[in-house]
């Protein structure tokens, strides 16, 4: 990258981490919802969970 690797790969690395992180958070949310559906006593009834 002609000495610009830090900036170029840094940009793509940050993008990968953020978009990948968003997907991981969504998968975690799916798992938590499924767990709550099978175990109703874990139901938190907290609407603040809706933001992520």
């Amino acid at each position: 990258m002609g000495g610009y690797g830090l900036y170029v790969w840094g940009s793509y690395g940050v993008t990968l981490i953020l978009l990948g992180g968003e997907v991981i958070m969504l998968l975690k949310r799916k798992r938590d919802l499924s767990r709550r559906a099978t175990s109703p006593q874990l139901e938190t009834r907290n609407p603040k969970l809706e933001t992520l």
Partner: protein
Amino acid sequence: MSQKTINWYKYAAPANFYVLAGKMIPWFTAITIILFAVGLYMGFFLAPRWGGDQKESYHIIFIHVPAAWMGMFLYVLMAIYAGIGWAFNARLASMMATAISTTGAIFTFISLVTGSLWGRPAWGVWWVWDARMTSTLILLFLYIGFISLQSSIDDPRRADRAGAVLALVGLINVPIIYFSVKWWNSLHQGATITAKGYQMVPSQLAAMLILLAACWMYSIAVVLARVRYIIREREREAPWLAEAAA
């Protein structure tokens, strides 16, 4: 001759949309992966080097510009959905606005970080308080404000209405971002693509537009996934949800 028509209004009901979204997510995910692979290959291996003084750091354009556009597009979309949800008391539209906000904030943050990483080699500084960058930072604060405001209100419908007011007021910032490089003296370069043409080699432009399409497909996939989880959380008492899960 009978004509088969699709009643799109039925998908305004969360119960119907939940099922439809579940069917669409794998398709948008597959298209996202293909478009990212093609766009990155074109950008790094097929497109020629930039002719100016940007040297190799110009490769950042392939993610910086799509991320910046997505930040603005998604904000407009979020405000429209929030406004429809508020005006017509449409639950699904409000849920869509909530689902879009996180993805929009992430793309805006990516545009700021990649812009900073591009600014250091191009201008010699990580950040300057010029109109384009400051108005984009305000866009990020608007997203964070929308998310925080909705999170702070326990009643989801009240949270939707409060978020809609903020989203609609903040809409004024989007044209300010777009025209900031025209209206004020700015260190930031002018628009890459205008009605008069574009300042790129066609293969560079094609790579950037393919990556923009990839970002759109990604956004649709994650927003549909998120809105399904919001529906599950808000409608957990509804009998249809148990049937859909079964």
